[in-house]
């Protein structure tokens, strides 16, 4: 977040991040070309453009795997969170590398005929040419790279933007199919399919592990509710104050509703939705910094008692009513309108602490 508009809000973190991306891509290309020139010799020798084409293509696939693994890795281990912060930079770089691969391939294989190269590409013989899957993946990556800026997120709305950017998964499927069918056509060895298979297994396994873990957490039993008579019977007991570390939250899954993040800070307890207004990040995995909830994904901030971003920002999230009885936290599961102020529940500091 920042007050004044700038196309890219550069800071040291972003510069270092992007320097690593550029160095990583350059290093990969140099290594691949050098290794390829050593390995593919004699009858299997390939020309320099084909070598570079393969280097760019495999580099884009490796980068896409990194992008897809970062999300679940960050859920499993918080040390990966800083890499999620500028994940879209890797996404844009992936598109640019894939574009380099495509331009080289179209120019090399379709650029010297009578037909327009794109017409030539789209009029390939055969039932379903593998190039089409590559083109489809590139088109999706282009749309995602072009709309990766916060401007588009604001213009489209956070929810629509999120839906749009879930197209990364179809793009991934197109790319894997592109590689497999392409391997059948031009590359008789098993190397590419095996690498892509191992990559898919890794990405799928990480998503599965995180999905199952979250499902287990969501289905965890809520403590039998013993709410005071003056409260509506809908109020639920979400646990003890002592379960929540200072300035952190407990995420509670309510049946049929959104998750709620219950924060403990400075002798108080407040509850807000677990969903950040920016990119739907998990607020409950963030912490309270300088009195504001800080989203673990991109650092968007909200005041815990009213769900409003501090001025001059205008983002708002839903809040919930809470009470502390003894050391048990009681929550009204009905969300209040985003930005509704709720008096934080106070509790006595534990004398044993």
């Amino acid at each position: 977040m920042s007050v004044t508009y700038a196309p890219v809000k550069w800071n040291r973190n972003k510069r270092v991040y992007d320097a690593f991306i550029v160095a990583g891509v350059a290093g990969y290309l140099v290594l691949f070309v050098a290794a390829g020139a050593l390995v593919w010799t004699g009858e299997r020798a390939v020309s320099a453009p084909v070598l570079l084409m393969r280097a760019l293509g495999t580099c884009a696939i490796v980068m896409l795997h990194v992008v897809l693994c970062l999300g679940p890795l960050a859920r499993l281990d918080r040390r990966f969170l800083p890499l999620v912060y500028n994940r879209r930079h890797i996404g844009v770089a992936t598109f640019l590398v894939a574009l380099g691969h495509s331009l080289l391939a179209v120019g090399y294989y379709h650029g010297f005929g009578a037909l327009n190269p794109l017409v030539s590409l789209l009029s390939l013989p055969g039932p379903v040419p593998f190039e089409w899957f590559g083109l489809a993946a590139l088109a999706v990556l282009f749309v995602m790279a072009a709309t990766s800026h916060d401007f588009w997120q604001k213009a489209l709305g956070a929810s629509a933007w999120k839906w749009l950017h879930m197209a990364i998964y179809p793009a991934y499927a197109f790319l894997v199919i592109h590689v497999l069918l392409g391997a059948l056509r031009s590359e008789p060895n098993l190397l590419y399919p095996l690498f892509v298979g191992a990559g898919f297994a890794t990405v799928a396994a990480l998503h599965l592990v995180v999905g199952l873990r979250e499902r287990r957490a969501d289905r965890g039993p809520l403590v039998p509710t013993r709410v005071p008579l003056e409260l509506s019977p809908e109020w639920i007991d979400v646990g003890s104050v002592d379960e929540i570390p200072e300035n952190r939250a407990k995420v509670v899954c309510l049946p049929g509703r959104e998750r709620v993040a219950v924060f403990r800070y400075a002798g108080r307890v407040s509850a807000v939705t677990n969903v950040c207004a920016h990119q739907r990040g998990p607020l409950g995995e963030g912490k309270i910094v300088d009195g504001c909830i800080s989203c673990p994904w991109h650092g968007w901030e909200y005041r815990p008692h009213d769900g409003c971003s501090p001025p001059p920002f205008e983002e708002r999230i839903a809040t919930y009513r809470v009470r502390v009885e003894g050391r048990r936290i009681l929550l009204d599961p009905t969300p209040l309108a985003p930005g509704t102020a709720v008096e934080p529940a106070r509790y006595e500091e534990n004398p044993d602490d």
Partner: protein
Amino acid sequence: MTRYHRRVHVWVWLAVSLSVGSAFAIWLIALRGSAS
């Protein structure tokens, strides 16, 4: 993510797995066909 996004996430992953699995099956069948 909202619960709707999470639900769609699961279905999208199923679709991706099916597509990729089919592509691998086609690749294996074609590979065995060309070997025999």
